């Protein structure tokens, strides 16, 4: 694990502490040991992953917009008296490398319009779709591309 990534995590935890304590400088007496402990446990638990931080700036607005649309979509279907749903189960072949990128993809998919990840196997994601008539495949491919860029990897080609 690289020193830079440890430093970044340390900054992240310090930021959380700063938020929690409302920026009270007197709190660092406890804050420094707490952040150190959290960091040690975090490093012990979580393997390193190479996030490309500036890609976040592109990913976050995309994700917020799509998840908002996801909420609107499902709310509309729930309230509509005819309840227009045509659910289906679908296996999506993952081209992302195993580990964090795949988990990140699975969690993201569950918040996007009409898709819900139901099982993560080796290199395949079972997705439950709310409306099998829609173009969810293109959406999944787009998300996968973005996740790949976020983690600084490329998609496998078959």
């Amino acid at each position, binding site marked *: 694990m690289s020193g830079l990534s440890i430093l970044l995590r340390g900054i992240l935890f310090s930021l959380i502490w700063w938020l929690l*304590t409302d920026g009270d400088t007197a709190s660092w007496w406890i804050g420094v040991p707490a952040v150190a*402990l*959290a960091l040690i*446990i*975090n490093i012990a638990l979580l393997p390193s992953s190479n996030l490309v931080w500036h890609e976040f700036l592109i990913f976050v607005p995309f994700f917020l917009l799509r998840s908002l649309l996801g909420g609107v979509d499902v709310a509309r279907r729930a309230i509509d008296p005819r309840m227009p749903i045509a659910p289906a189960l679908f296996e999506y072949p993952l081209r992302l490398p195993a580990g964090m990128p795949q988990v990140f993809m699975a969690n993201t998919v569950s918040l996007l319009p009409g898709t819900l990840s139901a099982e993560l196997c080796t290199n395949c994601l079972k997705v439950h779709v709310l409306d099998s008539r829609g173009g969810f495949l293109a959406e999944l491919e787009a998300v996968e591309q973005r996740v790949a860029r976020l983690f600084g990897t490329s998609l496998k080609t078959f």
Partner: protein
Amino acid sequence: METMMVAWMLDSLLGLGLLWLAWRCLACPNLFKAIVLFVAFGLLMALAWVRLEAPDVALAEAAIGAGLTGALLMVALAQLQSIETNGDAAGATEKEERGIRPLQWLLLIVLPLIATGLGYIILSFPPDAPGLSTAVATHLEASGVSNPVTAVLLNFRGYDTLLELIVLLLALLGVWSLGGTVPQQAATPAPLVLETLTRLLVPVLILTAAYLLWVGAHAPGGAFQAGSVLAAAGVLLLLIGRHPRAALMALPLRLILVLGPATFLVIAVVTMLIEDALLKLPPEHAGKLILLLETTAMLSIGATLAALFLGGRRHTDKEHS
């Protein structure tokens, strides 16, 4: 005026909701359903504490009700089912009730009487009864902290907290002395998404526990809430099958378990010798002493609650014998 009315409706709905949930939880035949209803009851209780201006209590209820109680009850039900082996956890039902028995008739007559009596007494209480709040407020200056609840817990009535830590320890000793009750099925390997969730949550739980410990000195929070949050981190790790190593389970765990009560006892003895009063903290050092007491109490409470969730000592037994 309108605000008052909405507040009244909110409180009435909350009260009715609590009663309804308690009734369904205790009356429905399906035990799994009863547990889910009890968890929901706990969440609603936390909202009730907020409405009663008791945010310290709400924090404790949130930490324990949302995390530990539900997990404890669910795991116990699953183990019960694996003992009885004739049903599944979700469809578990009690034996058929045999109609209303004489005892129940008696209860149905006596209990409303008791309830009416209690209700009458409560309504006849004077609307204002300062209780101990003025006494606490006048001595708050000397307590070392500015959150009155923490002042009561760790200074004014520190002996209560000491005894309570010992009670926790006794409960754990009770569980341990019963030994491993059920051959626990090997925990299924946690799915990757769950592993990741736990790994992300545990550091944040640690930071939050430390924050609650710190903030308890001047705002709602403190050792009990922090300890419960810490215990939740332990429970999560246990649930994904990360049991502590046997070496950790032996001496280090025991040391952490007794750290809180032991610190309390040492300070109690010292204050007895110097001030001639049990746990009477000298005002000039009270703030630091309370922080020390709270930190050790938090560690012990967290470890005890997590160990209670783990249950009998089968893991250590295996390693030692």
